[in-house]
């Protein structure tokens, strides 16, 4: 595709529910990143995939957060037992090679009531 796409654009859920956020990177980009951005802050790193494997998941806040990229393209960020503090904009980015510029998708705004 022309750019990184993310679905849904908005997600409202209730505390305790499970959510999945999807990211479709730029075609041919092997590196994929997830970030979380709270209001008034810069994005914070969550996890980085090189191909199908998670090369660095040091930013995942706890074991309720999990991400997969089974075929090395589309990735899904999964959040179990959501809490109000998980409310944020979740951004996905991809790059064509290591340490190259990252291109961001439009984000999914998650609201946990």
């Amino acid at each position, binding site marked *: 595709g022309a750019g*990184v796409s993310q679905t849904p654009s908005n997600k409202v859920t209730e505390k305790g529910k499970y959510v999945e956020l999807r990211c479709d990177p730029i075609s041919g980009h092997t*590196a994929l*990143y997830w970030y979380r951005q709270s209001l008034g802050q*810069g994005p914070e790193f969550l996890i*980085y995939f090189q191909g199908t494997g998670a090369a660095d998941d*040091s930013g995942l806040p706890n074991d309720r957060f999990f991400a997969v990229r089974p075929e090395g393209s589309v990735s899904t960020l999964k959040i179990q037992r959501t809490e109000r503090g998980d409310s944020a904009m979740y951004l996905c980015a991809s790059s064509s090679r290591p*340490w190259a510029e990252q291109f*961001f998708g*439009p984000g999914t705004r998650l609201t946990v009531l």
Partner: protein
Amino acid sequence: EDKVVQSPLSLVVHEGDTVTLNCSYEVTNFRSLLWYKQEKKAPTFLFMLTSSGIEKKSGRLSSILDKKELFSILNITATQTGDSAIYLCACIQGAQKLVFGQGTRLTINP
């Protein structure tokens, strides 16, 4: 701990003014510094700076990196209302992730 600090946090100027946005960093295994513009949702890539002292330019925007003093500036000349946005500075560090500053909110008044 890796740290990227931007200043000012907020800036309001009139159309036609020139602005300078600042970014200082302390990042382990620093690789490159990037500038992004964020309007409503997705940060849009502006510049990637890897070498010290080499200015990168795109239209009215320019940026330069000083690896000795650990900072970068983003200049915007002849500002327009369409330049109103949050400008984010980020560093790529050894593990390939981006470490972001908190952003500068720039408002251009007509």
